[in-house]
């Protein structure tokens, strides 16, 4: 497995393999069910959860509606506090900016706080190609990095691994990246955590440059916020001389007071904790305290295009809690890798095809990676109606239509491979608007019922591979109704 998602197959194909991997399914089932139940208990403790959810939604929607205003305010506040703001239109630009900033320090290695934004732009791979080593310091990200693996969950990137697999990765790979794992390492959580702690301590104490993302940016003060569980983030944010934060432009909240809502909803939705153990905030630079140089790289990378879509834009409310992944029955069976993106699960299925467009096979398949059961919407702490956006994006895939791509309105053609389905849908629509046609079809099906095979060719084959079709009855209801005058006469 390589570290990037480039050239992933469509979701159904990737999921086909994942569903058959019994270890993966057992790992995922155990992890998602545990956290799902804990989240439900943590949320039930608050009697104002519905109000918090609505408040979070409103704050995010308000900020997105006035994003231009808040971005300018943020830039002014960060600059006034001694930081420097950089604007990146896409992943390439962001990567070039970060590389230049690291080069200017004269360093060739950085320590990283777990960050979805840097995953999204493929920063580590880019830095590696430029001769700069990026060390992940979050425990799960470390497991993924050492295993030359891809993240499969927003919060727990190594959720697909069990303790035995992690032990093997540590024992085999740690030595190549720095301090080796202790001899005779077992798979007990305490030993694994201690091995990681010793390995990472070296990096923290040596690094001159830290790279982070941010969970929130406060426009009024220019403050960035990271919430985390392990404390590794705080080490990266405070020890290095230079700090570079790479953040999506949608992460703004207007005021400190707005954090009150999210610092309640985020931990309970993600780790099922009342409060996360570490909340770090930093505002520009302060003499004698923390990094002496601070850069904020604001990335667009498809976000303003997404903002232009009035149904799909709600995906930008996402605070990356991953509650939707943990409750999703499709994620539980298919695993995170099948989504072909650093954003897996239900939120990934609507975010990736918007940020990247629906041109590739994987992106065109993602809106269909859901049974529309609605569990994701139910748990979302900012009330993103994920099923609504999924259906909206399905429409974009099968019918095309107007979208904004890199700031320009373009008309998309329908994706390839849906012609037969489209024809079938049109035929069905025709039959359904002509009741006599439907009745004739039903009668034909009833008359030929003895000849219906148990397995069928074409698209139906996928159905009958694992399920038996119901037998067509001898008489449709409408024919029965007509024959018996609504059951009043000639009842059988």
């Amino acid at each position, binding site marked *: 497995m390589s570290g990037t998602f480039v050239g992933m197959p469509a979701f159904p194909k990737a999921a086909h393999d994942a569903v058959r991997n019994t270890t993966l399914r057992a790992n995922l089932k155990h992890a998602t069910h545990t956290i799902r139940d804990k989240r439900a208990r943590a949320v039930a403790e608050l009697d104002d959860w519905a109000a918090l959810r609505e408040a979070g939604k409103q704050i995010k929607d308000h900020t997105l509606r006035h994003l231009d205003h808040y971005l300018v305010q943020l830039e002014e506040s960060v600059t006034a506090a001694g930081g420097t703001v950089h604007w990146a239109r896409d992943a390439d630009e962001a990567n070039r900016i970060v590389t230049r900033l690291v080069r200017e320090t004269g360093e060739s290695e950085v320590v990283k706080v777990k960050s979805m934004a840097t995953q999204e732009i493929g920063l580590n791979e880019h830095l590696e190609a430029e001769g700069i080593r990026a060390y992940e310091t979050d425990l799960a990200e470390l497991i993924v990095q050492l295993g030359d693996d891809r993240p499969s969950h927003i919060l727990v990137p190594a959720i697909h691994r069990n303790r035995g697999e992690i032990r093997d990765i540590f024992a085999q790979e740690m030595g190549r990246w720095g301090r080796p794992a202790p001899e005779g390492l077992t798979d007990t959580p305490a030993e694994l955590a201690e091995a990681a702690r010793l390995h990472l301590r070296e990096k923290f104490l040596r690094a001159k440059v830290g790279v982070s993302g941010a969970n929130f940016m406060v426009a009024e003060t220019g403050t960035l916020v990271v919430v985390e569980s392990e404390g590794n983030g705080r080490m990266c944010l405070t020890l290095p001389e230079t700090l570079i934060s790479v953040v999506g432009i949608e992460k703004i909240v207007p005021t400190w007071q707005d954090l009150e809502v999210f610092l309640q909803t985020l931990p309970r939705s993600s780790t099922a904790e009342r409060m996360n153990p570490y909340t770090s905030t930093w505002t520009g630079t302060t003499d004698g305290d923390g990094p002496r140089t601070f850069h904020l790289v604001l990335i667009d990378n498809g976000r303003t295009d997404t903002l232009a879509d009035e149904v799909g834009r709600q995906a930008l409310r996402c605070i990356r809690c991953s509650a939707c992944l943990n409750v999703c029955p499709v994620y539980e069976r298919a695993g995170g890798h099948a989504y072909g993106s650093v954003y897996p699960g239900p939120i990934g299925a609507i975010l990736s095809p918007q940020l990247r467009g629906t041109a590739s096979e994987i992106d065109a398949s993602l809106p269909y*990676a859901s*049974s529309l059961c609605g569990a994701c919407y139910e748990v979302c702490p900012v009330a993103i109606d994920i099923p609504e956006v999924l259906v909206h994006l399905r429409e974009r895939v099968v019918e095309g239509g107007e979208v904004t791509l890199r700031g320009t309105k373009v008309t998309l053609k329908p994706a390839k491979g849906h012609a037969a389905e489209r024809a079938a*849908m049109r035929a069905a629509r025709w039959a359904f608007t002509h009741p006599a046609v439907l009745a004739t079809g039903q009668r034909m099906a009833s008359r030929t019922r003895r000849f219906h095979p148990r397995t069928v060719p074409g698209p139906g084959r996928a159905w009958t591979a694992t399920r038996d079709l119901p037998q067509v009855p001898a008489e449709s209801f409408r024919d029965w109704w007509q024959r018996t005058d609504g059951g009043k006469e000639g009842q059988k």
Partner: protein
Amino acid sequence: MRVALFLTCVNDTLYPDTGRAVVKLLTRLGVDVDFPAAQTCCGQPHYNTGYRRQAEPLARHYSDVFGPGLASGDYDAIITPSGSCAAMVRELYPRMGERARAEGRGDRLATTLAPVIPKTYELTEFLVDVLKVTDVGASYPHKVTYHPTCHGLRSLGLGDRPLQLLRAVKGLELAELPGAQECCGFGGTFAVKNSDVSSAMGADKVRNAESTGADVLCAADNSCLMHIGGTMSRLKVGMRPVHIAEILASTEEEPHV
């Protein structure tokens, strides 16, 4: 009270027994039932697969079939034994109207659909909320487990209404379904487009049902039951899928077989 039965295309074609059960049940409760013969499909398969504009004529057709009877007072309500089709009308028809408006096509679609939306009820919510009965005088001497379908649970918010009805059925032993709130994996075209995941979800649902020791799994939506039942049949599990209407229609004199 007089109601129009919206049976749905799936039930009409494949599950006429469910339709007959609804008629029998409602008649027993003193409700006059009519079946407007021009009815077809609510448009859910089209809408959910991304063919929203193809679903619009079907929504208009639904409105043409049921709207006039409501307006003239011939019907007090439209009843359907399908949670997902009721959710299509109640949750998604308003959305279709809004989208048409947002696309500059005016208020016509929204205005056309408006009268039928609040008058469309899923069977169990009609019984509990409108008729205000939970004991429908049914008898069904079997061990039954209940699967609350996603649309019934999360779109319509049926809550424990179906369970209230089942608990009042004479002779029925209700077994709690583990992981009841999890999707069975049907999801319309999802079952074909993502067949592997759909099958895995269906198999888990069947195993959970099997663990209850019940001999019947019931739900308020035959689409889900078609998927679960098809999986039960293939896995050779000794359980039957039965629509809740058929259980509620069953009496000591005329037991459901």
